[in-house]
């Protein structure tokens, strides 16, 4: 049982319970936040917090029902539910590279940030030959910057102004 990651005791009902509990907490949070805003408007009818308050109640209600449905059930995990180690590494590489772009885009500028982004991903995901990696990196960074700037799309210039 379990996914490719080989977690022998994992069950779908536990995963379901955890996910519905997270949604329940989200609903509680929405209710709390809605109560900080006006429930009724200055004139007739609902205020800014009205709709979200009741939607929060709906999320909590539905989540509670679904958590109740998972109690006492033992449903096995579908095969491959959890990615294997290599899959986790690939996902981490993608997310890491994307998050790095958020922090590097403005300080380094579009072209340099995307060059690092392309270089990293093409080497880690693709194992391309070096010459192709370099060509694709240049196309993906300076090439796309050139085309989009030609289309008058504003892209961050960064320290070097490129």
């Amino acid at each position: 049982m379990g996914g490719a990651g080989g977690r022998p005791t994992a069950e779908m009902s536990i995963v379901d319970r955890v996910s519905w509990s997270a949604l329940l907490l989200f609903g509680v949070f929405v209710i709390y936040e809605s109560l900080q805003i006006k429930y009724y408007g200055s004139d007739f009818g609902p205020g800014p917090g009205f709709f979200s308050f009741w939607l929060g109640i709906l999320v909590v209600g539905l989540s509670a029902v679904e958590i109740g449905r998972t109690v006492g059930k033992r449903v096995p995990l579908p095969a491959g539910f959890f990615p294997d180690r290599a899959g986790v590494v690939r996902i981490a590489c993608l997310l890491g590279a994307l998050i790095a772009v958020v922090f590097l885009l403005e300080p380094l500028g579009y072209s340099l940030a995307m060059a690092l982004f392309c270089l990293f991903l093409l080497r880690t995901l693709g194992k391309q030959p070096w010459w192709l990696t370099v060509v694709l990196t240049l196309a993906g960074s300076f090439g796309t910057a050139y085309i989009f700037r030609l289309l008058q799309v504003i892209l961050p210039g960064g320290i070097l102004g490129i």
Partner: protein
Amino acid sequence: METFQHLMNGFAVALSPLNLLFATIGCILGTLIGVLPGLGPAAGTALLIPITFKLDPTAAIIMLAAIYYGAMYGGTITSVLVNVPGEAASVVTCLDGYAMAKQGRAGAALGIAAIGSFIGGTVATLGLVVMALPLSRFALKFGPPEYFSLILVGLSLVMALAGKSLTKALVMGVVGLIFSFVGIDPIEGAPRFDFGITSLLDGIRFVPVVMGFFGIGEILVNAEQSLGNVMVGEGKVSSFLPRRDEYRICLSAINRGTWLGFFLGLIPGTNSAVASFMSYAIEKKVSKHPEKFGTGVIEGVAAPETANNSYANAALIPLFTLGIPGSPTVAILMGALIMNGLIPGPLLFSEHATFVWAVIASLYIGNVILLILNLPLVNWWVKILKIPYNILVVFILIFCIIGAYSLNNSVFDVGMMIFCGLLGYVFKKLDFPLAPAILTLILGPQMERSLRESLSMSQGDYSTFFTRPISLVLLIITAIIFITSAWQALPSAVREESKEAQV
């Protein structure tokens, strides 16, 4: 007769070599934008507004309109071949289009989408010419209660599309609505769910969410397997025509999709996603084999694609006659009109008749250009997608980053897209449907505004929704859809319970 004369004058202008060239360039650029995942018509049209600055207003709008409906069709190509919708209206095409591609029938899916789009677009444009005035008068009768009830019809259809779990679809719809409330309250101007982050005051834009959910989320799911093994499309795309036994089904689906898209296009506040979702739901309801939807049935592609393009053309009616944009992309077109010194509204027909009729005539021409371009060129477009996936992923991500950033020149939108990508990945793994969240995210602000304006108008009296005939009819339709869907879901839930009890 006067209308016919105007239209002929419009054709004379639209068929001038230069305008024809701009319509063709617009169709090609639009299709390219649609093909590149993450760049939908809204982002694509906005992105390309600057290149029309130096054109004369008629050529500029002809080109932008061509980009707009070109992107609609281009989005279909990626929906069918890579399961990545270019924009919200193409989400539903993924369900059966991608399933058809996996069966090696991508050509038939793309062919019927092109034919349906052509028929839908042409009929809608014809309808625009013939029925613009009387129908826009009808649409004028829609006040906030009618809008609210209409949106409820759309949301009840989300449940009709729920698939396996009604609860999961409902929760995802609610999550989308809650996301749509982030930012400045539309009535009182109070900030909500902004957590002190200035960028959140503008609200969560749907483009980064769509790119995140469907672009990055899909890439993360694919990354679980070796990326080199993920196929983009299945073999060569050939045989664009449906099987002989599918013609009748396709024609009926295209017919229904055309009229639904056209009618919804007239109602400001709706969007092409509603048209495609509704037409898909209607096809599922009228089908003799609704359980096969999602496994690659051709009417599941024909109807939404037709409705989507019919909507795209008809949506220009409220823009031209009332000055009200029906969708985000039409709103961008409106911005382009204003930038060119043309104020959309009733006076546009009298003050700039040549311009309006030239644009209307160009819609016919654009539909012909798209049909001529797209069927023979599909294999060429597909070549872009035949690049090894581990390389394509990098370039898809680059376009997503540019698309998200260029919306508002903000890194925050890039961050939002990544966050939504992670959410999309988790939701996909847990089998939560993403489409309801996108639909409610788009409809949320209008829904809330309509509800609150209705209650302000009626001085807090909720009966306003039941005493207005159009609103009442729409609410009855909502109730019928809701009860039918819940009734259909109930026995399957009970069956599931009993099966699980046996495990």
